[in-house]
């Protein structure tokens, strides 16, 4: 098993903030919008350097999405920022009509996604956002795994033409990917070659998958571990190549098992190479208040859950 180490734990939302600042420096058309959550979205550095390119919308997310759409008319590249639940469910029709169906080059940047938002509880813990966004034609959906990858993804979106949903989180997590990585939208990253089971993970579950891989090795199981940061467009070939080798798969995400990464993978497999699949995801439930690690354990989306799922998948071969 390939060894991954990290020197620091950092929050992915800070990666977004750093990426946004860098994006603003690289391209003068980059503008940012926020709905009264500047601190939480780590947008202060961008605002300090480019105050005239920042728009405080107030607690009016529907208006924010429309304004972002309008800003593209005239050549701006808008990055919106608020919590993931407010970035999707709350404003779904606005995104659908004014952004997706209108083909507008808006980057919807969504923080505090999933259970790891923690104590605020279920009203804020969105577990349906990947599903909602992937079902919009033309929408790119990205869920990077750590600070470095989130920063790289944010930058990559500057030159990407078309609407995109970038999802990241609140807590600090191991920052293990290279600082100088080139982020390729839509390209899976092979983290470890293996033969017995494929583990495909996204976002916070990628580090959990790596932990799981180490435990599985101790149990004599060789896991192929893949980081799918882009749920849409999905790197179907990478997944198919892997399952043809291993014969079974575990998908892992901080999301409802309905409508997320697992769903997308299942469709690809069902069409091209039916394969036993286990889903590490929230089992069609709302979240609750708690600490991130406690919640991930209670709702079955941590390294231990991936280990169990991998062993089960192997028995189904």
């Amino acid at each position: 098993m390939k060894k991954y180490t990290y020197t620091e734990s950092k929050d992915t939302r800070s990666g977004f903030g750093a990426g946004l600042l860098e994006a603003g420096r690289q391209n003068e058309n980059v503008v940012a919008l926020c709905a009264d959550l500047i601190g939480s979205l780590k947008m202060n550095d961008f605002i300090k350097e480019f105050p005239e390119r920042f728009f405080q919308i107030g607690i009016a997310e529907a208006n924010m999405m429309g304004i972002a759409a309008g800003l593209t008319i005239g050549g701006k590249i808008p990055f919106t920022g608020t919590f993931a639940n407010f970035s999707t469910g709350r404003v779904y029709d606005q995104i659908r009509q004014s952004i997706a169906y209108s083909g507008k080059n808006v980057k919807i940047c969504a923080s505090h996604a999933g259970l790891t938002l923690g104590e605020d509880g279920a009203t804020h813990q969105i577990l349906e956002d990947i599903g909602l966004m992937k079902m919009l034609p033309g929408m790119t959906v990205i869920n990077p795994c750590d600070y470095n990858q989130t920063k790289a993804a944010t930058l990559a979106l500057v030159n990407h033409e078309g609407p995109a949903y970038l999802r990241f989180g609140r807590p600090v997590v191991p920052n293990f990917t290279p600082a100088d990585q080139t982020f390729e939208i839509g390209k899976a990253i092979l983290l470890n070659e293996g033969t017995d089971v494929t583990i495909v993970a996204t976002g916070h579950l990628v580090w959990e998958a790596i932990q799981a891989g180490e435990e599985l090795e101790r149990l004599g199981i060789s896991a192929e571990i893949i980081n799918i940061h882009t749920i849409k467009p999905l790197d179907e070939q990478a997944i198919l190549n892997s399952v043809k080798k291993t014969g079974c798969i575990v998908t892992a995400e901080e999301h409802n098992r309905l409508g997320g990464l697992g769903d997308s993978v299942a469709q690809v497999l069902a069409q091209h190479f039916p394969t036993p699949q286990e889903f590490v995801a929230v089992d069609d439930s709302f979240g609750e208040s708690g600490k991130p690690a406690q919640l991930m354990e209670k709702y079955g989306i941590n390294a231990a859950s991936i280990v169990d799922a991998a062993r089960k998948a192997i028995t189904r071969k």
Partner: protein
Amino acid sequence: MSADINNLEQIASQVRRDIVRMVHACQSGHPGGSLGCTDYFVALYFHAMKHDPSFNMDGHGEDLFFLSNGHISPVFYSTLARAGYFPVEELATFRKINSRLQGHPTTHEHLPGIRVASGSLGQGLSVAIGAAQAKKLNNDNSLVYVLMGDGELQEGQVWEAAMYAPHNKMDNIIAAVDYNNAQIDGPTHEVLSLGDLRAKWEAFGWDVMEVKQGNDMSSVINGLQEAKNRTGKGKPIVILLHTEMGNGVDFMMGTHKWHGVAPNDEQLESALNQLPQTLGDY
């Protein structure tokens, strides 16, 4: 620049003919509001606005127009075609399959003249504000116009946008409300009263004007000129445009019934007899 009112009225008559013919041909669509707003559209595209029919999305240096109440697409399409954005003959494809003239306007099929999809109400003012913000950033002193329905003002997002524009001194925006007191389920004051609409917009910080005769071309032209004179003074402008749903076709006037109903063959004939053909039917 003085307006040739007579010429504009002739264009409006042809646009009205286009509307009833388009809606009749596919037996669906929204003639009432389209007819009511015809004079406003003609005034905008044939007089007040500085715009380029060769059309590009960014519209640098041009005035922009957004239709928020997208269901009155017939008047939008006819006006654009008559103004040279796309061939007039294409109006015959309205709402037909594989057409660029979708039931509600969209950018999806790249119909020249359309800059955002609309149809689900309440979104256009936000988009117009975004475009106006881009113009400010680009040091582009042309204007952004947006039209909304009065029933549409029942959508909350409109008021998010209405709160935002004055706070940010968006004085390059001229919004208009099709103040016809009519919506699908009845008169607006019966369905969900807008109350004192003038006072509401003023309370939100807008510079409010009224055009009491929104179907009289002179009044509309003068109103738009007045609105333009008020731009650049720190406040966005909103015009309460008093129109009549179905204006120009007698049996469609005085009722909310023709919001979204197509005329049959006899009704079409009656309508066309009331509207002089001036520019040539497609």
